[in-house]
């Protein structure tokens, strides 16, 4: 476990911004951190980065406490924050060199390679004051990747990026996690982005992690849903209804059936239908929708808070 968060809590006066958060992220995993505005995501991330002191609980990166052993912990992570700050009077290369010096042991060639990797090779020697938000975001990402960190913490990394930039970032993150074994914590408002690349997610609302787990598990619950297009739907229904634990319902089209089960029955369904000579045009597993799930969780969170208040 490269990142371990235990009972992390932060209060600002009477308001509890983050309450009893527990998380763990493994090497090579992309972990999505979701929540509406003001949910406490940025506060939690700032505690991971040693910018805020937790009131209780702790966050550890590579075994080092993020607040008490900040210098050691910070050697293992890189971060892109919500508003990417860079020194406007310095060029992109000089900005990168500033942060590289603090890490030590990052060669000039590595810095140049990083600038190439994020697509700033042609603008490396221009002052950052003339950069767009997207270019600053790319530079911030290069800065975060200095020194090959084990953990990458990205708070809204697609802010200001154009569609091509978002696609490039997504591919880069997949490559970093899969091929380089870097753990990535990604906080984003873009659910499609999270759905597309994250292995696991946590959803925060009102300072509390309402749910966390693998994306597929969370949005599909415990069950499996399939859509079946058969040549003879009536006969297919009769055959499949004999399978224990499988519920067969009508689809929206005459040739379509909806199948629900608490286990993966795709192979069994195909085998039975083929053995009985029922042609199968298509059998497709249906995934849930993250947006619906997100809405459900955050609404439930809001209701809980409302109930607690009243």
């Amino acid at each position, binding site marked *: 476990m490269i990142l371990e968060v235990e009972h992390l809590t932060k209060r*600002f006066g009477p308001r509890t911004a983050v309450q009893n958060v527990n998380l763990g992220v493994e090497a090579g995993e992309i972990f999505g951190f979701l929540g509406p505005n003001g949910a406490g995501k*940025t*506060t939690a991330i*700032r505690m991971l*980065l*040693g*910018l*805020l*002191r937790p009131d209780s609980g702790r966050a550890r990166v590579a075994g080092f406490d993020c607040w008490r052993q*900040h*210098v*050691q912990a*910070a*050697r293992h*992570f890189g*971060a892109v*924050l*919500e*508003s*990417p*700050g*860079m*020194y*406007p*009077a*310095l060029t992109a290369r*000089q900005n990168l060199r*500033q*942060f590289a*010096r*603090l*890490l*030590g042991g990052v060669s000039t060639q590595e810095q140049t390679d990083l600038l190439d990797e994020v697509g700033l090779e042609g603008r490396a020697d221009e002052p950052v004051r003339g950069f767009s938000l997207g270019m600053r975001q790319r530079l*911030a990402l290069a*800065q975060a990747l200095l020194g090959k960190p084990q953990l990458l913490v990205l708070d809204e990394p697609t802010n200001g990026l154009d569609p091509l930039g978002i696609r490039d970032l997504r591919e880069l993150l997949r490559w970093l996690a899969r091929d380089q074994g870097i753990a990535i914590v990604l906080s984003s408002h873009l659910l499609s982005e999270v759905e597309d690349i994250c292995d696991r997610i946590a959803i925060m609302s009102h300072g509390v992690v309402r749910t966390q787990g693998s994306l597929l598990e969370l949005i599909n619950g415990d069950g499996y849903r399939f859509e079946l297009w058969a040549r003879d739907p009536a006969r297919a229904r009769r055959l499949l209804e004999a399978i224990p634990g499988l519920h067969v319902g009508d689809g929206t089209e005459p040739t379509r059936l909806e199948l629900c089960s608490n286990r993966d029955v795709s192979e069994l369904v195909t085998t039975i239908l083929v053995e009985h000579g029922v042609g199968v045009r298509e059998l497709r597993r249906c995934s849930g929708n993250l947006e619906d799930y997100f809405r459900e969780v955050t609404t439930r969170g809001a209701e809980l808070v409302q109930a607690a208040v009243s």
Partner: protein
Amino acid sequence: MLPVVVWNELEKLIRRRGLLIVLVTAAVIGFGLVIDLATPQQADWKSQTRQQIAQLEADKVQAQHAPAGLPAGIEASLGSAIDQQIASEQYLVDHDVPPLDWYPAGRAVAIILKTGFAFLLLLFGWLAAESVAQERSEHTLALLLSRPVSRRTLLFGKAAALQIVATTVLLVAMVPVYLVTGLQHAGRASLTTSVMVLDDPVKGVLAGNIELLPTWFYVVAAVALSLAAVLVTQALGLLMSILSRGPALAIGLTLGTLFVLQPMASVVKLALRDPSWLHYTFLPYLSPSNELTSDPTVGLGYSSAGLSLTVLLVWAILLLVAAVTLFARRNESS
């Protein structure tokens, strides 16, 4: 890690404020040279001093024969003061010791400290005040603090970089004025002269209370006292910078303290007849010209300079400790 942070801070400082620093330094040098070239040198200081002695003796006689007559106590103390001043001036003439502003180093230091130093002090206060607050407003502070460097090292790095710039600027401002002053008034030989100072400025110019210091030592003493004043200003600026969200507020608070409290200290000094507690604040010592250039023959008083240096350093340390403590504990929320 500290040298790395200092190097980073110097790079940022020079690229962001390099032009301003060069312009202010050039203005201080230019201003100093103009004043120096416009001020006539006391070529025949001995005859001038003898004239002063004659005038003092005349004043004494006039006081003794005043028609209305002064109260006995006042008359005696006035006579004694005039006698002491006559003795001092006579001592200088007899021992061939010219007044401080005759020496090139003395003139150069006096010119800088009495004219441009106030601007330099404000410049350094400004730079310190914006150092942390500017990073906070540009969102670079969070990125910097997320890197493997302790907050204490970061703050000391900033303070050290500011002090390096201040030392360089002070030396760059003083040396040309010193060279031009020396060459203008006495040719190359004057560049190696000594500077007359007093052990204790309160005792005045008396045998046993006078030291002839090598020029380099006098300049070093001037730079050290000036830097101690700069250090207090910077520590104050850093503290304001840590407490403020934006650079404008930090700069305003720092310059406000320097602009308002210093004149206020002078008013308090007059109104309360120089209360002793005032000597334990840093305000009377921010301008070290009194210790280094007091008129006209009294140079650096060791005891006076020592008190100034001690008070300034103690305040600098207190302000820096406060700044480090606050910075180390402060939550940097978005």
